[in-house]
Structures are given as structure tokens and as C-alpha cells.
């Protein structure tokens, strides 16, 4: 039975390569990677975008301080990856199961203590890197026109990262976690008028209850990371679109026309 017409359709011969000899199998194998990339690129036209993102012009005089943003991005990726795998063993059970599951990760799971440690210490590293990145941008004046929106999104990302720290702190569910969360929620409640209701929202009720831990867990691993990933994407788009500012000690080369004096 012949193939349906649609499936049997072959690619029309490439007029540029008519009559060229076929590659030997070993050569074809070495070219396979390139062939796959070409195949994808022909259908997506992604390569100009990748080139636009990766091969940008950067100003003279940039230094290691300019890598702090990338460092923060990798800290975020570390948190995301280790967090996903911690979630495979973690159980947000307020009646003792949460603490037991963390104890199991640390004591029994292969590399569990290491991955947990990566997540725990990575959180502190990320906060430190964010503040160093922010200080670099501030002291170099890189937040000025036209990069104000990049700065504003960065500040939102800082706040979200702190919210991650707050919600994540409860999850080991030991005495320190529990009381730190009690104190943290109560600090939040001291906001006038809406503070008490925000506390009820965070705790899912007037007291620390059965669903407080799962609520914090959902906020920590689903809600905030999703928002952060989207905002990081937009932050990076703006960095790429607007380019990197030069360091303040590098004087812009002014065109002749501007400095020319005209006699009147």
C-alpha cells in the first residue's frame, strides 16, 4: 500500500548542492550535532535571537563586578534545581512528618545532606549576591535612564527573594523554624488596618494551624518561583535590549561636533 501523499513527501532538492558527493557515514556522524541544530533552527529561526542574547557589544572598562548579576542568576538556578529534588523527599506534614522527612533527607538519602546544604547555604549566598549586585548597580549609576525599569524589577525580585527566605525558613519545621515564623508573621501583623488580616491569610486562620505549613510550602515552591522566573526573564530581556552601562570612570568620547566652538 503506498504511503499517504503527505507522509511520502520528500524535501525538494537543494539547488545549491546539486551533484555534490554524499558524506561518508563517519563524516555524517561528526556532522550530526550540526545537522540537528540546523534542523531546529530552520524551523524556529532561533539563532538570531541567541546571537542577539549572547554576542553583545559591551562597553570599555567593564570588570568582574559586572558578573554579579549572572552570579545571582546561577544562585537562583541552584535554588531551583536543588529545591525541585528536595521536594521529592519533603513532606509538609505539620504533625511531625515535616521534621521527620528533613531528618530522613539529612541522614538516609544518598547525597541528601549535600543537596539540602546546597539549598540552605545557597539561599544565603543568593541574598549576599543580590545585595552586591544591587550595590554595583547603585554605585556605578547603572539604574539611570533608560534602565530605571530594570532597577524596579530588580527591587521586586529582591523583595520576592526575601519572601522566599521567609517562607522557606519554616519548612524544616524545627523549633527555630516554628518560632521564627511565629515572630515573622506577628511582625507582619503590626501593619495598621490590614496587618491582622494579612496574618490570617499567611496562617490560614487565627492561629498557626494544620494548613499553615502547606501554605508556606506552596508559596515557597510554586507561587513565588513562578513569578520570579518570569521577572528574571524580563530583567534579562531589558539588560540585553538596553545594553550594559559603562563604568562611571570611563569618559564618553564626545563627538567633535559637540565640542566645536562657533564664533559669533
Amino acid at each position, binding site marked *: 500500500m503506498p504511503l499517504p501523499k503527505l507522509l511520502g513527501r520528500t524535501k525538494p532538492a537543494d539547488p545549491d548542492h546539486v551533484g555534490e558527493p554524499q558524506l561518508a557515514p563517519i563524516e555524517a556522524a561528526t556532522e550530526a550535532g550540526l545537522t540537528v541544530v540546523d534542523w531546529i533552527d530552520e524551523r524556529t529561526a532561533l539563532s538570531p535571537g541567541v546571537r542577539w542574547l549572547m554576542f553583545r557589544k559591551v562597553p570599555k572598562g567593564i570588570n568582574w563586578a559586572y558578573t554579579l548579576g549572572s552570579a545571582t542568576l546561577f544562585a537562583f538556578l541552584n535554588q531551583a534545581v536543588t529545591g525541585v529534588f528536595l521536594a521529592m523527599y519533603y513532606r509538609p506534614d505539620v504533625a511531625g512528618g515535616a521534621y521527620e522527612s528533613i531528618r530522613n533527607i539529612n541522614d538516609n538519602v544518598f547525597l541528601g545532606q549535600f543537596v539540602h546544604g546546597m539549598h540552605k547555604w545557597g539561599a544565603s549566598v543568593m541574598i549576599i549576591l543580590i545585595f552586591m549586585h544591587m550595590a554595583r548597580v547603585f554605585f556605578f549609576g547603572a539604574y539611570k535612564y533608560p534602565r530605571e525599569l530594570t532597577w524596579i524589577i530588580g527591587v521586586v525580585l529582591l523583595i520576592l527573594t526575601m519572601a522566599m527566605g521567609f517562607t522557606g525558613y519554616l519548612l524544616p519545621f524545627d523549633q527555630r523554624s516554628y518560632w521564627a515564623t511565629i515572630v515573622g508573621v506577628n*511582625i507582619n501583623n503590626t501593619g495598621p488596618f490590614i496587618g491582622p488580616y494579612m496574618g490570617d491569610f499567611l496562617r490560614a486562620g487565627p492561629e498557626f494551624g*494544620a494548613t499553615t505549613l502547606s501554605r508556606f510550602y506552596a508559596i515557597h515552591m510554586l507561587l513565588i518561583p513562578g513569578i520570579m522566573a518570569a521577572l528574571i526573564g524580563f530583567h534579562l530581556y531589558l539588560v540585553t535590549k538596553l545594553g550594559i552601562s559603562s563604568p562611571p570612570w570611563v569618559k564618553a568620547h564626545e563627538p567633535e561636533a559637540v565640542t566645536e566652538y562657533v564664533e559669533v
Partner: protein
Amino acid sequence: MPGAFEGETVTRRRFMNVVAQGAGGIAAAAFTLPALGFALGPIFDREPFQWQIIGKPEDFTQDAYTTKVLTIVEGIGEAGESLTYVRKRDPAIDSEPLFEHEGYVLNNFVALSSRCMHLGCPVRYVAAAERFICPCHGGVYNFRGEVAGGPPVRPLDRFYNLVHDGYLYLGPRYSVNSELERFSPRDPGEPLDGIGQYLYPARFSTSVLPPTNNLPAPPVVPGG
């Protein structure tokens, strides 16, 4: 752009645009609003609270506090428990009035919550000093639970209590201002003096005084 026919006020292109965007908006709202209500629901949900037995009246004296564990949230083990410091009311020093509720005289005992009114850490009673001391930020309360020093903004919260059938029953928590006047329960860090009670309004979620017609029965004593 002129209309497709005489007297047309909305072009077909614009009409289709509005319909498509509106349908998308309605579809998005159809899952966003219920999800939002789901997350915000606990703010408006009133938690039921049961009277619970914490001892016999003769277990408590006027001049010393006895520590008791009570359950604030059922079914979650230690995380749902809290401490209370209980003593018999001493008319010589306790000026706050008794009051009646469904035929019972309430608050013949002083049952203080261990929750510090600065930020909610658990205070401990130091009998030698007759003071409650908070380990977190140094809050100090006197024998009646009033602020004696440090950052707390109001006296220690209390629990309603009544005596029934030879047992002391504890009810829900309530808050007091510096005159020991009763308010519905507030969270720590929220002052109740002056404009405090308006800055930090009562919440929908906190328990009201539960009825006394279904008090839990006393424990059965073996051989008693």
C-alpha cells in the same frame, strides 16, 4: 474607518476584538477568582473553639501560678498546643470584674497565655521574681500579667474560664488593654490602648465565647 454599512457605530473588526478579549478575560477570571477566594477564605472563616478541662479548682492557689498545656488547634500535635499559667483569682489584687455567661460566673481564675505580647515568643514564669520573662527580646510582665518592662505593647492575653461539675474549663483566648479591659483576641504586637484598638481591628476568624450547653464530660477516673 468608515462603517461597513450605513449608521454603523462599531466596526465589525472592533466588535470581534472586544468579544474575543472579553471571552478571554471571563475565562481567566473563571479560574483566578475561585482560586483567590480559596486562598483568602480562611480570613473570613470562624474557627470553632471548644471548652476544655485543664484541672480541678483545688489544683490552683491564689499566690502561685500552675503551668498547664492546652490545645489551641486540634489534630496537629505539639504545634497546636500552647501553655497557660493559671492561678485562683485574688480579690485583693485582681480588680477586673467577674461576669456572667449562660448562668456561669466566668473568670474566677486568672489563666494567662504564655504568648508574649511583643512578637509571640513563649514567656516563662520566674516564681522568685514573680515575673513573666520572654527569652526573645526581654519582655517582662508582673504577677498580674501587666507589662513591667521591655518591648511588649499590652498585658498578656488571657483565657476565659469557668467551673463546672468540679472541674475548671478553659475557653477561648481574649486580649486586654493596660486597664485589663477585655477585647476580642488580637495578635501580639498590636497595642489596644488609645487608637490601637482602631488601628488593629477585630478579625472575622477569631472565636467568640462558645455556648456552655455541650461542655466536654470530665474524664472517667478508674475505680472512682
